[in-house]
């Protein structure tokens, strides 16, 4: 796991969650800006997932490969799925849905980081 990238994604998620909650509090639907920010974070997630897969192939050690792969898959889909569910009904609660997805991604990243033992040679 690239610590810098994980930190960046986590911060991005925090911003997404904050924007979502603000939209919810002020009863605003999500705008293009929200979705662009979500796409940006998702791009970083994609890079992290590719790096992690390359690391695994290169002999990196994880505490449970199946679990780690499950985390990778979840991390990859949670934001797009959350964004789709959020804009499925455009009202103040869309922001809440986006915040839930972003926070779920943060938790997943923390769990991924905790089972990532060491990068391979």
């Amino acid at each position, binding site marked *: 796991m690239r610590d810098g990238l994980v930190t960046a994604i986590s911060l991005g998620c925090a911003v997404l969650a904050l924007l979502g909650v603000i939209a919810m509090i002020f009863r605003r639907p999500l705008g293009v800006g929200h979705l662009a920010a979500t796409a940006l974070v998702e791009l970083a997630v994609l890079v992290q997932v590719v790096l992690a897969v390359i690391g695994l192939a290169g002999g990196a050690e994880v505490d*449970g490969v*199946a*679990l780690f792969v*499950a985390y990778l898959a*979840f991390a990859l889909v*949670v934001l797009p*799925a*959350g964004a789709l*569910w*959020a804009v*499925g*009904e455009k*009202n103040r*609660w*869309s922001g*809440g*849905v986006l915040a*839930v*997805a972003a926070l*779920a991604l943060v938790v997943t990243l923390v769990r991924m980081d905790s089972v990532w033992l060491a990068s391979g040679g």
Partner: protein
Amino acid sequence: MDDLQASAPPASGAHGVGRVLVAVYAVFAVAAVARAAVQISSRFAEAPVAYALSAFAAAVYVVATVALARPGRGAHRLATAACSIELAGVLVVGTVSLVLPAAFPDATVWSVYGRGYLFIPLVLPVLGLLWLRRSAPADDHSSAAGVTPPGQPSG
């Protein structure tokens, strides 16, 4: 089936804050299924009771997620049942895991009232049941709400 009321506010299904609830439930469903699958496939013999319980909890979350997301009276009943089972499960398993820790050598979602998951498993079924009571379809649980929603379709 789905074209019940065009103008009136939707009686049930995932609308409004219910969609946030469904999102949280979906996250827990995926997490619980993944956890149970990993536990059972890799080391079921170590703690069969705990892991069977994990699988049961996962199934309850999946059913609750789908039932909460879908409209209709049947889905509403199913969601109520799932949330009730979930609440009973987290209370019973939470209590047993405190009184008889030996019964659960490994943690489940519901151990110690869901402490490993920020106690969300304890709060979630309560929120789910509150939401279900509020979003009850008309002429179902009418005695509980006692309010007839305005703007019924004239047909």
